[in-house]
């Protein structure tokens, strides 16, 4: 909404990876609109707190609904929206700090429930908005404002974490490739279950990883990023583990399990057994 709205006063730094994620999400939502014919208002973007979450205010063109709440709580808010109104398409956008640190406790339960939403994590390996402190994905030893002598904790491996927690769709992408990323996001949205799209979205101000990701032949730096080979079987969890344990940053779909029912399907199935009683009937059971 930024172009239309001079009062909105947040801007991403030049070159910030989040611009690319925003493009990808705009593409994905337009794709969805064209495929399903459902209006843009059918999409709800639940945003975390961070530079990343500001995406919900910066989307151009037709506007989806947005929810910009409190730090770390995108997943339970998304659950509330989705279980209240299953016909809505719910998309989460959050930073690595928001999603994996303060909000980390919510990933396991939603993966176990197989909540039917798509979560896009914008990983820049740092707390951008609070100006450069270490995050769970900051590499061990890195100097940041809150780790002046180098980061003490080992870095988290989000892709392996999602696999272990039981997410039924896991993709990994790069903000520098918005078209490709949009395709991953569209597949995540179409997936009937808990879909994680983990995106490397470099922070040019506090943790510029573009060179690391893309490599630099002149300096002899090998790219970390590589496309997942065609022969990778995404339905094979063992193969998915092998992939994420290799060095480098795979791009594409790592894992996809289409056999597990979503939370909604399970609720519908199990609660179909429940007797439905009106308030009068319930009161009858207390009458004497």
């Amino acid at each position, binding site marked *: *909404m*930024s172009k239309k*709205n001079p*009062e*909105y*006063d*947040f801007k991403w730094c030049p070159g910030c990876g989040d611009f690319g994620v925003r493009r990808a999400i705009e593409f994905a939502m337009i794709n969805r609109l064209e495929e399903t014919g459902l*209006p*843009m*208002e*059918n999409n*709800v973007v*639940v945003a975390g707190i961070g530079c990343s979450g*500001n995406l*919900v*205010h910066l989307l151009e063109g037709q*506007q*989806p*609904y*947005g*929810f*910009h*709440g*409190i730090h770390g*709580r995108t997943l*339970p*808010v*998304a*659950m*509330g*929206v*989705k*279980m*209240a*109104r299953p*016909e*809505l398409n719910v998309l989460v956008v959050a930073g690595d700090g928001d999603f994996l640190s303060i909000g980390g*406790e*919510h990933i*396991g*339960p939603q993966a176990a429930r197989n909540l039917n939403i798509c979560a896009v994590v914008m990983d820049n390996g740092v707390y951008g908005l609070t100006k450069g402190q270490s995050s769970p994905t900051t590499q061990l030893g890195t100097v940041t404002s809150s780790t002046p002598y180098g980061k003490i904790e080992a870095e988290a491996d989000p892709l392996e974490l999602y696999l272990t927690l039981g997410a039924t769709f896991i993709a990994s992408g790069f903000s520098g490739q918005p078209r490709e990323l949009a395709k991953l996001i569209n597949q995540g949205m179409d997936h009937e279950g808990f879909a994680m799209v983990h995106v490397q979205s470099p922070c040019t101000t506090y943790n510029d990883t573009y060179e690391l990701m893309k490599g630099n032949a002149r300096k002899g730096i090998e790219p970390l990023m590589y496309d997942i080979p065609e022969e990778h079987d995404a339905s094979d969890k063992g193969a998915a583990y092998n992939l994420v344990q290799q060095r480098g940053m795979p791009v594409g779909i790592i894992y996809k399990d289409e056999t597990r029912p979503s939370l909604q399907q399970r*609720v519908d199935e199990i*609660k179909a057994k*429940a007797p*439905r*009683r009106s*308030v*009068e009937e*319930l*009161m009858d059971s*207390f*009458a*004497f």
Partner: protein
Amino acid sequence: MQMRDFVVRFAGEGGQGVVTSAEGLAQASTQVGYHALTYATFPSQILGGPTWTQARISVDPILSAGDDVDVLVAFNREAYDTHREDVREGGLVIYNSNDFDLEGDDRSYGLPVDELARSTGNNRAANMVIMGALAHLVNMPQAYLEQFVEARFRRGRANDDEIIDSNNLALKLGRDESASSGFSLGDLTPPAMPEYPQIMLKGNEAICLGALAAGLDFYVGYPISPATTILVFMERNLVGEGKFAYQVSSEIESITTILGAGYAGKKAMTATAGPGFSLMSEGLGLGWMAEIPLVVVDVQRGGPATGLPTKTEQSDLLACMYPAHGDVKLPVIAVGTVEECFFGAVKALNWAERYQGPVILMTEMALAERVQNIHRPDLSKVQPERRLVYDGSNGYNRYQGYELSPMPLPGSPGAYVANGSEHDEMGDTTHLPSRHIQMTERRFSKLKLLEENEYEADNADEAVVMMPWGGSKGPALEAYNQLREQNVPVGWYYTMLLSPLPPALLEELKQKELVIVPELNYQGQFSGILRSQGVNAVSITQYTGLPFKVRDLVERITEMTNSHPKEMVRA
């Protein structure tokens, strides 16, 4: 001697039938037209452990659990030793002589409960042996109890008759044994069956029914005493098209999940106790800021931290009145009786919809677990409210103006960002002073929509008045009635609506010389709030984990009125 009312305390070990006996007696009595109220305490361990439940049976509607125990039923020696002193002078003790024996207590007698039950061929009839014995003590006709046995055990099974016969036999054996002891308390006045339809239930169940009657769609919660029974009820009964109930992973999930559901258009609620309420603080602020209807029920127990999980207290008031950081003020409703649990829940859901924001409904352990007969709520008088929903085309600004405005729902035109950061009319984050002024005033202005002059007032011309809140209403009202009988010049005020207070009530209170607030906390939380609003209020406090005794209130209020000579003159 005629008795209008009697109090039985059942004490023993968890699993010995303490609760079932008390609730059985209450049910049997209400079926023939008495009023009944039980007060339960919980053992602090899962299996076994000392526990007790009190049942008060009366010809008249009941306000409190009763100060004095007429009969103690002691299932074991420890129970006898612990509770013997609470038995009033002239009261009696029945003890299970199959468990222990006593000598030298001329106000007690042993009942071989297990042996008598066994002799009926139905070991599970032990409760009936006890009930029979109690019936003799107050000369309650055997037919009353047989009616209860019939209602409880006639379920269309092949062996119904057998079960009913053995229970009736157990009643008779208990009664005969009691009669042969030679003890008796008097004659309980015959009941007068109320002319209105009744239901008998616990406070938490009444909250659930009220919420459903108000159109609740969505409930999530996390187990915590004494709020768990609400989750359990909802998981079982909030089912069907468009309804959802679920156990989530923490109270942070509870509040943020219902924020999502409320935003998406549903009537959403959660319930918790103090520790969970603390975790919801940030989410409640978000609900206020983003203007999202939802209800949080706080079933108070002793606090802070893990506190006294199985005891009652009214010590969360300050937390509920000031539940979040920043400039925020959430509506607070506190219920005082089982009936109010129902109507308070209706009101809370309606308020949330009406002003588009979070509402806090306070109740407490002693109410949550109390079983009481109440006038069956007339659903035709319940009018569920629905938020103002935007139904125009795109190009709408959700947060326009200084007052309540229609709320767009996802899926329909009017897309906006529900924003917990300060925002402009479209919901985009902004730091402009003019916007912060507008939005702050907008949020506070909506509270005006909740100003309702619903309160009780009696002898309102007195200069000294009582004004309890929440569950202390019952004992306070009983004390008030006694005080008036003794010509103590004191008036009565009460409301469920603690914030915003009914404006007319506040005006009246400001005129009083003294407003006495009985409340179960150390600080005198409500009187402090009243003083901050210009009312000369003082508290009568108690922090034992137990409800007030009527006698204590009568004594303390009499003293307080005595030390106010001016009022004595006026009266």
